[in-house]
């Protein structure tokens, strides 16, 4: 019996890895075809990506990018585990970063106090923004997809309105750029200097902690169990005593709070202010990464690293005479393949397990005489 159980588990693990691998290989094939279609040779492109991607300065760049992407992936994954599609992570992190930057610029307290305050402000803003969608869904039955998309647009408008000289913004660099008041140097988050390779954002530590918390809360706590139950079957959850509505609102708020962290590596480690060049669209990247990582904390990390790698290396391809739009093609194809591959693998896995259980029980039933002899 033990043997079969472990075999099933091993198989499950294998199947779990097979899907993303399959997707990435398929994406590479499609990308190669696309490069061929543009009349160029894909071989050198791939080899350039490899050598350039693993250069040490690239590694630091990729880790920094991945930190942001990881947080975004986790924020989306929290929703996914609940069967909620928080497409509004994008708006949530931007408005969170904006207000955190405003607060950070205004604070005059020492860094050890200011940094936590900035981070908490960001999380609270993100949670509030996502909470609007959560409350609307629970009380009025508004689809969270629609609500969060709208909230994205509203966030853009709110930031655009407030980020003006005389409101919460101020003119920088001789009047060419509007930003929030820059953070005092004491409020900068620590960085790790890796020498010529560049500077590693200290926020990577926070990202790792978020990953650990995500794993622990979902897998090891009662709350996490309830959350997963609702995600798997709302009817079973309510029969088992979970208040589905409360859970929907709570997980939306958690998702938003994590989303609030997405802008922090940029704000605290790099830009130190919110301006028009603050990165946008990371919330959508998070959706792709959460899908790729199967909502698994380690899977999301791998997905985030892959995304960072692709971004870094395709940028470099431009200098080799390739089109940088190839990045969009690879990413798009990966996501598409991943969705398909997971569904195929999931169905195959379930069916296979059913067959195995049936076979095992049939074998047990076929040998009852033996048992009787023993007894």
């Amino acid at each position, binding site marked *: 019996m033990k043997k079969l*159980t472990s075999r099933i588990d091993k198989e499950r693990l294998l199947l779990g890895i097979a899907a993303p691998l399959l997707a990435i290989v398929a994406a590479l094939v499609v990308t190669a075809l696309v490069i061929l279609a543009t009349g160029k040779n894909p071989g050198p492109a791939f080899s350039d990506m490899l050598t350039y991607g693993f250069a040490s300065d690239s590694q630091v760049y990729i880790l920094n990018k991945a930190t942001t992407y990881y947080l975004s992936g986790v924020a989306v994954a929290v929703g996914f585990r609940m069967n909620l599609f928080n497409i509004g992570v994008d708006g949530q992190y931007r408005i969170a970063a904006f207000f955190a930057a405003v607060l950070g610029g205004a604070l005059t307290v020492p860094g050890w106090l200011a940094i936590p305050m900035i981070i908490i402000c960001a999380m609270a803003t993100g949670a509030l923004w996502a909470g609007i969608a959560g409350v609307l869904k629970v009380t009025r039955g508004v689809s969270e997809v629609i609500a969060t998309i709208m909230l994205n647009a509203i966030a853009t408008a709110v930031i655009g309105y407030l980020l003006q000289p005389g409101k919460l913004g101020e003119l920088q660099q001789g009047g060419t750029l509007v930003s929030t008041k820059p953070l005092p140097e004491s409020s900068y988050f620590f960085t790790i200097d890796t020498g010529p390779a560049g500077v590693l954002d200290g926020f990577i530590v926070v990202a790792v902690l978020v990953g650990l918390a995500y794993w622990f809360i979902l897998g*090891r706590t*009662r*709350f*996490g169990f309830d959350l997963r139950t609702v995600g*798997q079957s709302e009817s079973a959850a309510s029969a*088992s*005593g979970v208040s589905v509505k409360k859970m929907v609102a709570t997980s939306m708020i958690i998702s938003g709070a994590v989303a609030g962290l997405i802008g922090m590596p940029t704000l605290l480690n790099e830009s130190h202010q919110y301006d028009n060049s603050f990165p946008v669209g990371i919330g959508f990247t998070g959706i792709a990464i959460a899908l790729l990582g199967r909502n698994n904390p380690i899977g999301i990390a791998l997905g985030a690293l892959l995304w960072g790698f692709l971004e870094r290396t395709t940028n470099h391809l431009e200098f080799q005479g390739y089109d940088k739009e190839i990045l969009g093609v690879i990413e798009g194809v990966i996501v598409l393949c991943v969705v398909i591959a997971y569904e195929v693998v999931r169905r195959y896995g379930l069916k296979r397990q059913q067959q195995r259980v049936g076979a095992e029980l049939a074998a047990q*039933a076929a040998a009852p005489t033996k048992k009787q002899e023993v007894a």
Partner: protein
Amino acid sequence: MKILYGMQQPDEGTITVGGEQVVFHNPGDAIARGIGMVHQHFMLADNLTVLENVVLGAEKLHGIGGKARARIKEISDAYGLNVRPDVLTEELGVADRQRVEILKVLYRGARTLILDEPTAVLVPQEVDALFDNLRELKAEGLTVIFISHKLGEVLSVADEITVIRRGTTVGTVEPRGTTPKQLAELMVGSELPTPETQESTVTDVPMLELKGLHLAQTDLDGVERIILDQIGLTIHKGEVLGIAGVEGNGQSELVEAIMGMRQPDAGSVTLDGTDISRVATRHRREAGIGYIPEDRHRHGLLLEAPLWENRVLGHVTEKPNSRGGLLDIKAARTDTERIVEAYDVRTPGIDVTAGSLSGGNQQKLIVGREMSHDPKLLIAAHPTRGVDVGAQAAIWDYIREARREGLAVLLISADLDELIGLSDTLRVMYRGRLVADADPATITPEELGSAMTGAASGHLEHTEDDA
């Protein structure tokens, strides 16, 4: 059955239809070969007429207009099905719906009919009518495969009976010269279980009291429908109270009201002297309500989660599943092993998904889980539906044993033999009201059946000339 209808492929073996060996890759292949299936759960669209439901997906045969209507009439008359093509499906009763399902299959040219547990939702009188229809079909040269757990019915309607147990054929018998007991022994492979309870264990300590439970709902047309109408009942410690009734007469809503999944408009629920009318589902469970839901896939299990997580489901706040706010995975797993052992859940391990177990084993796991938290009240809704005879006997045993130990049980079932056999007190539910009560010691299924259709009410007395 699934193989025969092309929904699943066999690993080995052959199917021969009309002397010709065939392979079915999907239900379409099976239909093309003249095999039709009437599912246990009807597959009809409520907001369409009978005609529309019948032609749905088979528009190519006779179109969707006059020709189709004529063909439906023709089939209906030929087999005495009495189907009215222009009635909305939602206005039909269960028996009528079933006839529509049968007609749907015949319309597609089926010569072999598979009926999966067709009588589960019918009252005895309707069962007789169904059997008349089946005999009609037989007389016209059609083949009928009738799948049922109910031995009496199989004996009365079949020309040949094949008993299948745990996936293998254990015997084929002639109904003439076979008693239900022999048949049942073939099915269980051992002594026949009966749902009879022994000496009464009813005490006079009330465990569950419902008073004036009322629930109304406004449907889409703005018409207010009363779902629960002044339900009042008391279950004592050690008492099994059975509720008979055709499905859809408010039983599910009653259970949901007691569980706290649905808030009634008025009335109170008192458990063991404490008013729990306003208490959340989780706290009601913690207070000692065990729940075997009627639809285990929707309400009782997480099909894609491993068994041990399903053991935690519904009892996540209780020992041994958690300590403080944290799950105690090790203890939960150990306890799952214990349940699997004690309740004879046939599984290769506790890490397989619940969905890969058979219905009977899933149900035994649920029963084991609910019994493991010393419930004061057990709500058992169709506890043995879709469960093989062996598991059925085991589940009955668990209920009886718990009753001896002072458990109060609310039993809701469509299986009248089960109700009569297990209950200490019987109530009949019709259109949201408890219309009749009966003494299970003397009542017959037929008498209960007439109250279930609303033909009788009040206290049901067994009359000799009636039987």
